[in-house]
């Protein structure tokens, strides 16, 4: 830690909304000289938006930015760089076919002096990389480099522009553990050299190990700012997910004498897109009339687990059964036909934006005998059934022939839930069913899930909203690094305990 006196940047009462979604709400943020400041929060908490505002990519609706005690308007990234602010995004802004040096000076040199300055630029780049220990071959093409190298290029780009403040947006999400360690070394060197660093993350461990101070955001609001040495993982976890748990929802018990196992998962192992193990040896079950919640920080294998269970991702090892039928590596349609409903985590994976509501509602059942004969669709029936569903599930739309794109986010989600629940699934796999929807839609979707449970449906609920998991689930499984690290029943559910499990502190059970 270098000198930590003096404020480098102050963001005051920043508010930013996108359409009806409030991304940042009256956020105050302060970055000191020479500190590593962690910006912690779940996906969608407003961390990246806040920093994109500082970097000039977004303009705030209200609030001000004060740099070195002076109020500044940052209208573009170019302006931000002039103010000494650089940002490394999750997705690198690079041209793969150009060399490192070309990428670094891209946008800096004027064309007529291009050739002349390249040698000098190269020299300077080599010098900078020596000072900070950021070794990259300046003449290599970007596409030849590893992800870790490419990230170093991004950092070099910022350093070349002599930034004093560096924002790193979830820099470790693409790195291997070794690369992460190296990155942390680099960050410390930068701070020693007098830079200030904003480190955006949702990983508690990283926030604890690298930062000097941490600001936690939740739902666009600042929950707390703490000195890292004065806090701990459990406290941060609580800040991240929130304490207020909704117990207002009516949970009528499912009173069937015969509970039976609907979903059985045994030793399931699934790989991620990058080829590493995302789900490791997972075993659990879900019974009729039961909601099993999977809690965990995003990116700990939940996505891959859901994709495996719905036939969208290849299962490497282990098996799963629905109602006793082994559906391991079955096609999505086979799984669907064994009465499994699926609310995917991305709305775009569920709806065809340019299709009508009818077409969207019929997407997973148009081929059934009910709606088609000899391959010809029964338009009349499709229409009348859609009209029914839209009314029954209270989807607000001008007509069933409206184009899905025109609906609000909440109504789109209700349309998806309606489609999946109305098929009367035995098992419903719901991934983040209320992500990005307004409070009204959130409540009605939660009630629909509870109603489904009351009727004896089995529901696997994946959510990063801990309050949602706590208020809906009968049992909660906590996933961390692809494993189920703990199971708690509703009665013994305790936010501190779950927070600790999510943070990777294993309890002996």
């Amino acid at each position: 830690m270098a000198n930590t006196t003096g404020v480098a940047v102050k963001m005051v009462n920043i508010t930013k909304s996108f359409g009806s979604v409030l991304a940042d709400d009256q956020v105050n943020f302060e970055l000191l000289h020479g500190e590593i400041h962690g910006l912690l929060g779940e996906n969608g908490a407003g961390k990246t938006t806040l920093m994109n505002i500082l970097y000039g990519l977004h303009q705030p609706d209200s609030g001000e930015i004060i740099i070195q005690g002076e109020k500044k308007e940052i209208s573009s990234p170019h302006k931000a760089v002039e103010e000494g602010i650089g940002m490394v995004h999750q997705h690198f802004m690079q041209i793969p076919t150009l060399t490192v040096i070309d990428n670094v000076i891209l946008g800096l040199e004027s064309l007529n002096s291009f050739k002349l300055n390249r040698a000098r630029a190269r020299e300077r780049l080599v010098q900078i990389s020596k000072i900070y220990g950021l070794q990259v071959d300046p003449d290599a093409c970007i596409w030849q480099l590893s992800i870790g190298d490419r990230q170093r290029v991004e950092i070099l780009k910022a350093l070349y522009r002599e930034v004093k403040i560096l924002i790193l947006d979830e820099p470790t999400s693409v790195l291997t553990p070794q690369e992460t360690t190296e990155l942390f070394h680099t960050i410390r060197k930068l701070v020693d050299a007098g830079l200030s660093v904003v480190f955006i993350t949702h990983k508690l461990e990283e926030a604890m190990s690298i930062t000097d101070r941490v600001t936690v955001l939740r739902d666009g609001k600042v929950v707390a700012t703490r000195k890292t040495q004065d806090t701990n993982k459990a406290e941060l976890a609580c800040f991240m997910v929130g304490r207020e748990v909704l117990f207002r929802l009516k949970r009528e018990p499912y009173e069937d004498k015969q509970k039976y196992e609907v979903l059985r998962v045994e030793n399931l192992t699934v790989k991620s897109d990058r080829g590493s193990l995302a789900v490791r040896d997972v075993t659990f079950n879900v019974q009729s009339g039961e909601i099993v919640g999977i809690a965990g920080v995003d990116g700990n294998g939940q996505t891959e687990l859901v994709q495996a269970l719905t036939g969208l991702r290849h299962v490497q090892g282990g098996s799963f059964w629905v109602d006793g039928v082994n559906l391991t590596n079955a096609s999505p349609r086979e799984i669907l036909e064994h009465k499994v409903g699926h609310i995917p985590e991305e709305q775009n994976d569920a709806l065809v934006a340019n299709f009508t509501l009818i077409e969207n509602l019929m997407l997973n059942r148009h081929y059934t005998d009910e709606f088609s004969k000899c391959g010809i669709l029964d338009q009349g029936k499709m229409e009348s059934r859609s009209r029914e569903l839209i009314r029954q599930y209270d989807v607000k739309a001008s007509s069933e022939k409206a184009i899905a794109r025109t609906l609000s986010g909440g109504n789109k989600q209700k349309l998806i839930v309606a489609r999946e629940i109305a098929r009367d699934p035995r098992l419903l796999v719901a991934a983040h069913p209320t992500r990005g929807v307004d409070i009204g839609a959130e409540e009605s979707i939660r009630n629909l899930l509870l109603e489904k449970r009351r009727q004896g449906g089995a529901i696997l609920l994946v959510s990063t909203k801990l309050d949602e998991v706590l208020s809906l689930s009968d049992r909660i499984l906590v996933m961390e690094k692809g494993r189920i690290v703990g199971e708690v029943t509703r009665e013994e559910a305790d936010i501190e305990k779950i927070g600790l499990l999510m943070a990777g502190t294993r309890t002996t059970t």
Partner: protein
Amino acid sequence: MIERIQNLLHSDQMGKWVRPFFTQVLIVLLAFVLGGFVILGIGADPIAAYAALIKSAFGNVNSIAETLVKACPLLLAGLAITLAFRAEFWNIGAEGQLYMGGVLAAVVGIYFTGLPPAVHIPLALIAGVLGGAIAGFIPVILKAKLRVNEVITTLMLNYIIILFTSYLDQGPMSDPIIKAGISRRLLETSWIPIMIKGTRFHWGIPLALLITILIAFLLSKTMLGFQIRAVGENARAARVAGVSINKTIIWTMILSGALAGLAGGIEISGVQHRLIERFSPGYGFLAIAVALVGRLSPIGVIFSSVLFAALIAGADTMQRVAGVPIPVVYLIEGLVIIFASIRSIRIRSPFRRKVTA
């Protein structure tokens, strides 16, 4: 009355068909106006040139027949492209599929002897359909099994098939007397009969129209059509909903190839009656423009195929009568394509596949 018209204008059918139709017509007219300035620029009279174009394409029964004879393969190949593009399968191989259809139709027409026309004609056309379907199947199976980019395979197959046709015409199938890149005549029992005496207007043209209606029905009212559109609009959502993307694109391309193959078969047994080296003046490539100008709608393709056929038919006359060089006609063609495509496709490159950033 006015109210009824207003209701009609705001009805769903109206929004779906009529408004896009008129915007498209306007766009095409605009391209012609711009082309007119070009004609003016080279010192010719645009009005005289366009009058010559219209006259030579639609001036009398024979010229209309000739235009429609050219529109027929464009229509069928345009439908082939429409179907494939609706599933976002970038089939650039209609030309090759058309040639393959022509080859098989010629084989049946030349070597299957002793058949009555009622059997021989359908058999030749079915052979054409089959040839196209096979040529369409190769790239799609490569895509489905090995993820090979279809733009490359369909494009390259064109050359393979066209050169294969040349080989047949020079070698095994060449006419023993003429010996100049041309096959023997098809047996008359396999010729599609002429519908209007004294012209080349044959029964293949109404057949193509009938097929257009079937394809329109397929796209909007059948299971397969629904899946084709779903896969094209949002493949991930289709997959999540249990639609098999591979199965869908395979069927799409079998049908797409079949349509282009039928275009070739009809051209051989309805017009040319011989398998001639390079018998298609690029119908399969022009079909891409036809499909795009027709906004990837089967009914739209009817109009755009006639439009492009008229441009082909009238090009010579424009040069002769109004002194407009043929390249200028191509230029107008290009303008129509650019103008019409701007609004008819979403700009989405077939080459943009995620390579991990």
